């Protein structure tokens, strides 16, 4: 069996006195598309951020490709890694944010090649070529020279996806990638994600788009109040939720 891409074991996380994650156990297999749904404040974003070590965890173990995220285990204790080592591990993980977070002072192409050139030290010419390819792949070949402010929300989010892909990640994390978009523009972004899933990319997607989850997702995880409530194939969970809380939530969103 190939190792799981993500393996979370009783992950705990609190901010001050609020416990946000209360023992998350999850495994994501290579090539799997996992959809994470749940009410606001249930800790979905926090979990995603822990996977990328944008947040430290308090207790438990979180492995990406069998390596501890942001820590090293010595003498049975977890030691936080140094910034450089954390950055190195992060390169294999692409993240797409709800609010795009494109670099506003750079054109679309510059956004895409920034990390390869700065972090991976790819020669600029080569990076530009590959950047153009990626922009083409997300349907924005003609927008390479535009600044983010000159792009629609859907186009911005697609640039953000291209930017994450430029680092050749083996895992992509999406945090509500379409919820800041006008209903009309949602389609373009989901289309790109669907193509990515078809290519075999391992993905964790926090979303409210149940249609996408049903069609593209391999598994659906319902979280509430910092814990995993229900988990299973999307079609099953969506049509016949076992838990009361899942049912109540789905009735509001669908």
């Amino acid at each position, binding site marked *: 069996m190939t190792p799981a891409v993500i393996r979370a074991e009783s992950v*705990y996380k609190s901010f001050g006195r609020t416990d946000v994650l209360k023992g998350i*156990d999850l495994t994501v297999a290579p090539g799997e598309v996992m959809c994470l749904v749940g009410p606001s404040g249930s800790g979905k974003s926090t979990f995603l951020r822990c996977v990328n070590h944008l947040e430290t965890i308090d207790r438990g173990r979180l492995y990406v490709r069998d390596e501890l995220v942001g820590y090293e285990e010595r003498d049975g*204790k977890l*030691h936080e890694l140094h910034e450089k080592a954390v950055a190195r591990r992060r390169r294999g993980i692409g993240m797409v944010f709800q609010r795009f977070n494109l670099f506003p002072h750079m054109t679309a192409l510059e956004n895409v090649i920034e990390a390869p050139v700065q972090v991976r030290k790819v020669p600029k010419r080569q990076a530009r070529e590959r950047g153009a390819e990626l922009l083409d792949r997300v349907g924005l070949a003609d927008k390479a020279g535009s600044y983010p402010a000159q792009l629609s929300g859907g186009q911005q989010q697609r640039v953000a996806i291209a930017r994450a892909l430029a680092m050749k990640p083996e895992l992509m994390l999406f945090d509500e990638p379409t919820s800041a978009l006008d209903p009309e523009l949602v389609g373009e972004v989901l289309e790109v994600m669907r193509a990515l899933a078809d290519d075999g990319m391992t993905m964790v997607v926090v979303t409210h788009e149940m249609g996408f989850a049903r069609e593209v997702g391999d598994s659906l995880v319902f979280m509430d109040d910092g814990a995993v409530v229900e988990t299973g194939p999307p079609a099953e969970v969506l049509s016949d939720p076992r838990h009361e809380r899942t049912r109540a939530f789905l009735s509001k969103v669908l």
Partner: protein
Amino acid sequence: MTETLVRTDSGDAAASPRPVPPRRPGQRVAAVVVAFLLVFLLEGWITNPRMQWGTVGEFLFSPVIMEGLRTTLLLTFLAMALGIVGGVVLAVLRMSANPILSRLSWCYIWLFRGTPLLVQLLFWYFLSAIVPTIGLGIPWGPTFVQADTNDLITQLAAAVLGLGLHEAAYMAEIVRAGITSVDDGQNEAAQALGMSRGQTLRRIVLPQALRIIIPPTGNQAISMLKTTSLVFAIAVPELLTSIQGIYSRNFQQVPLLVVACFWYLVATSVLGVGQYYLERRFGRGTSRHLPPTPLQRLRGAARNHRKESAR
């Protein structure tokens, strides 16, 4: 695929140990070196006989210096008040749709920021050399009321006018940046509610702009505290020039400048505390919780300390 795993060897999750923060030996070494250097410098400074600590003590609270300090504080207060009010007016004019007003404000800022404060101070003080009397009347026509310029513009008035009008030009740019930073939606929401432009500015835009305006204004106030020493050019003696007067007589420059530093540091610190609380006051609503005040933090630390030692 999505089964739940619990690693047995790591034991109960709640009992699994908290991660240890990384050691940063470089930082520790740096800290020690810095502390060492500081102590070395401080030791050298304090034990240096040239500091003449006795003289410092002798002059620290002497009446002349106290009076200079009072003048400095008074001038700073008045000039900053004039500067802030003037700055707000200039910024609003500068952003007004009326091109005449906007250009006028631009010219003012250009002129008052661009010429040396010394010249402006001398200008107000010696206005009478150019305009011996100030009168109210019709240009090129009859004058109704008139007064001797030297009587009208006292020494203090000249100082405050010079410092304040100069400051207003700088404050105008700061206020403008602050107003620009307020989201346009705020303006629209207020207008949609039927509020007039003045009401919108006063009640909605300015209170939010303050968050951006206060920190650079703090810079300006601290700067003003020291800029006031220029008013000696028009014979107003304040803190620094009083001190210069003293050491020009007894040549004990070093200890007297230490006295100056002491008082300026005290004044700056008081201003800094004021700024902290002002920022806190106008940061209201920008985050979920207000940060604790230093006092509250102190109390919190004391509480924690008690807890720790009770173990």
